[in-house]
C-alpha cells in the first residue's frame, strides 16, 4: 500500500473525531471566547461589549467567593480522594477470597447517580436525625450540624467525593496489576518491608497513573455541580457551597446572561490550564516513565 493511500485511509478513519473536534470542541471554544466579550441573553443575539464581562468579574464578590469555594473543595477533595483510591486499590489488589465482592462494594458509590447521591447524603448528614450524627452521638462525640453550618458544609461535599473515589480506584487497581511481580520479589530479597516496597516499588511504578488521576480529579473538582445543586439549593448556607459551575449555570440559565457565563467559563479554563501545567512541572521529577 502506498503512502498516500494510507494517509487517505488514516484521515478517513479519523474523520469522526476531526468532525467531532471541530463541531463539539473547537467551535464551542471559539464561540465561547467570542460570547465572553458580548452581552448575550438566551433569547437575543450577542452584542459586542468588549472586556466588560471580565471587568465585572474582577469586582464580583460572589464570583470570587465561588472561586474560593471551588479551590477549597479541590484542595480538600483531590488529596483525600487520591490517598483513599490508592489505599483501597492496594488493599483490593491482594488475592483474598471474595475479592470480586469487595471490589464491587468499593466501586458501588461511583455507580450511584449524582442526584441519588445528593438525596442520600442529605439524609446521612442531617444534623438532627442523620445517620452520621447518630453514630457520633453513640460514641459521645458532639457532632456538628454538617449541612447547616457554613464551615462544615464544604467538608460534607469533600467527604462525599472521597466516598465516590471508585472510578480512580479501578484505574489504580489496573495499574497495580501491571507492576511486574519480579520487582517485588527482588525487593523482598533485599529484605524490604511493606512500607519500603510501597515507597520504592509501587508508587514509582504507578506514578504516571497517579499523575493522570490527580489531573482528572482536579478537572473534575473544578467542575463540581450536581451534588451541591441537589443538596444545597442556591449554595446555602450563605453561599458556602456555591461553586464555579453553580455560578456559571445560574448566570447562563437562570439570569440569561450567557456572555457573562462564558467569561466565567474562560476564567475557569485558564485556571484549569494553569493548575495542569503546574502539576506537570512539579511531577516531572517524580514521575517514572517506563521506556519501552
Amino acid at each position, binding site marked *: 500500500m502506498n503512502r498516500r493511500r494510507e494517509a487517505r485511509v488514516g484521515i478517513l478513519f479519523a474523520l469522526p473525531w476531526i468532525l467531532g473536534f471541530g463541531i463539539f470542541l473547537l467551535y464551542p471554544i471559539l464561540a465561547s471566547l467570542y460570547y465572553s466579550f458580548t*452581552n448575550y*441573553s*438566551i*433569547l*437575543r443575539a450577542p452584542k459586542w*461589549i468588549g472586556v466588560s464581562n471580565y471587568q*465585572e468579574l474582577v*469586582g*464580583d*464578590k*460572589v464570583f470570587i467567593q465561588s472561586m474560593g469555594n471551588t479551590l477549597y473543595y479541590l484542595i480538600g477533595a483531590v488529596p483525600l480522594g487520591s490517598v483513599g483510591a490508592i489505599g483501597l486499590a492496594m488493599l483490593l489488589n491482594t488475592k483474598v477470597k471474595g475479592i470480586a465482592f469487595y471490589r464491587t462494594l468499593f466501586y458501588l458509590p461511583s455507580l450511584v447517580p449524582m442526584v441519588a447521591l445528593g438525596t442520600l447524603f442529605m439524609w446521612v448528614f*442531617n*444534623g*438532627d*436525625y*442523620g445517620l452520621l450524627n447518630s453514630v457520633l452521638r453513640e460514641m459521645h462525640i458532639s457532632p456538628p*450540624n454538617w*449541612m*447547616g*453550618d*457554613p464551615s462544615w458544609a464544604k467538608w460534607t461535599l469533600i467527604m462525599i467525593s472521597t466516598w465516590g473515589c471508585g472510578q480512580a480506584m479501578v484505574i489504580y487497581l489496573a495499574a497495580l496489576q501491571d507492576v511486574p511481580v519480579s520487582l517485588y520479589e527482588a525487593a523482598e530479597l533485599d529484605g524490604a518491608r511493606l512500607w519500603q516496597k510501597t515507597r520504592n516499588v509501587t508508587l514509582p511504578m504507578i506514578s504516571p497513573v497517579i499523575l493522570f488521576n490527580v489531573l482528572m480529579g482536579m478537572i473534575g473538582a473544578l467542575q463540581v455541580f450536581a451534588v451541591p445543586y441537589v443538596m444545597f439549593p*442556591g449554595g*446555602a*448556607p*450563605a*453561599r458556602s457551597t456555591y461553586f464555579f459551575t453553580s455560578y456559571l449555570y445560574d448566570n447562563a*440559565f*437562570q*439570569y*440569561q*446572561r450567557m456572555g457573562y457565563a462564558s467569561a466565567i467559563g474562560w476564567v475557569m479554563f485558564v485556571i484549569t490550564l494553569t493548575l495542569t501545567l503546574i502539576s506537570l512541572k512539579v511531577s516531572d521529577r517524580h514521575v517514572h516513565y517506563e521506556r519501552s
Partner: protein
Amino acid sequence: MSPKTIAGLTLTFAAMAGALYIGETSVSRSARQDRVTVVYWEKWTGAEGEEMRKVVDAFNRSQDRIFVQYLSISGVDQKTMLATAGGNPPDVAGIWLDQIYQFSDAGALTDLTQMAKESGLGPDYYIKGYWDPLNYRGGLWALPSTPASIALHVRTDLVPAKYASPETFPKTIEGLDEMNKEVSKISKDGTIELAGFLPSNPGWWNWAWGPYFGGQLIDGDKITVNSPENIRAFEWVAKYAKMFGPKEMQSFQSGFGNFSSPQDPFMSGKVATELNGVWKGGYINVYKPDTKWFAVPFPYPSDRPDLAGHSNLSQDVLTIPRGAKHPKEAFEFMRFVQRQDIMEGLCNGHGKNSPLAQVSEHFFQNHKNKYIRLFDALARSPKSFSPPKIGINQQISNEMTVAFQEVNNGDKTPKQALDDAETRLNALWKTYQEQVLNK
C-alpha cells in the same frame, strides 16, 4: 467485511433506529387530530395538580375546538425559558409571579393586554393587590391561577391563655417578642425544645422582613435594600438569632419535617407560631386535623400602627411564552380559568383565597380554611405588598436570603450584610439596565 461484522453493524443500526423511533415519538406530543392542542406546563403535582386537572378536563369538555394537554413539569420556570429559547415553548406556562418581570424583559412572554381587554378582564375584575403586579412596563404578562396572602399562624394550645385568641394575641412586634420569650423552652445545655417564633422558619420570604417594618426594596429605579427599615428588620432577626443561638437553631431546624407532613414543625408542636400562607390551613386539615390553631395578621412595629393588617401577596400565574404556537387558544383556556365559579373552585381546592374582586358567599362558607375571610381581607388591605417589580427580582431575593443567613448565623451585622447586598445589587442592576434594558 466478515458476516459477523456486518451482522454486528446491522444490529447496531437497527438498535439505533429503534431507539430513535421510540425516543422521538416520546418527544413529539400526542395530539388530537380534530382539535387545536394547547400544551400547558404546570409546576403542581399531587393534590394541587389534581385540582388543576379538573379545571382542564372541564375546559376540554366545555367546547370541541381546543384540547388542553396538561403536563406536570418539575423546574417549570427554567424549562419554560429553555424551551422558549429552543423555539418550542408550551402554549401556557404556569410560573411564579416574581419571575414575570425578568421573563418579560428577556422577551420571553406574550403581552396579554389586548386579549384581556377584548375578553372583559381588567382592573375592576381583580383585587388590586393581585392585578397591579401583573402589569409591568406597559404590558400585561400573566393572569393569576391561584393567589395567596400570608398571616401568622398560632397554636392555641402552645401559647398562654391570655394570647390564645385572635383578639388577644399581640398586635405589635414588641408584643410578639414578649410572647416568644414567654413561650420558648430552652433546656440548660441550650437545646431548643419549643420556639415561640422563628424568623428562619419556613424561610420562604426573606426579602419581606423589611416591608413588614414599613421598608421598600426598590424605590422607583433605585435599590434600597439597606434602607433604615430593612436594617431595623434584620436587627430584629439578629435579636432572635442571639436569643436562640445560631448553632442551636440550626440543630433544632434540621429536625423539622416537611411542611406537607405531620412532622411539620408547626403541626408537631416545635414552634408555637409560624408566618405562612393561606394554604397552611389546608395542609393542617390533611396532615394533622386535630391541631388547634388560629391566624392573625403579622404584627407591626409599635411605632408604625399605620402598617396594621399587612401581608405579602404572592401568586401562581399563567403566562403565554413568546413563540407559542396557539396563543389565541391558550388565552381562551386562561380566560376560562378566570371565570368566577371556576376560579373559586380551583382556589378552594388549593386552600387559597380568590384573586377576583367579586367573591361569592358560597366560597367563604364552604372554604377549607376557617380563617378565609381574614386572608381575603389581607389580600384587599392597602398595606399589603408584593415582590418588587423589577427584572432582577430573583437576584434581590437571592441576596436577601444570603444576607438573612449571614445575620441569622451571626456572621455579619445586619447593616454590614445589607450594605453588602446593596452594593452587589446596585452593580447587578446597573449591568442589567445597560445590557437588558439598553439604558
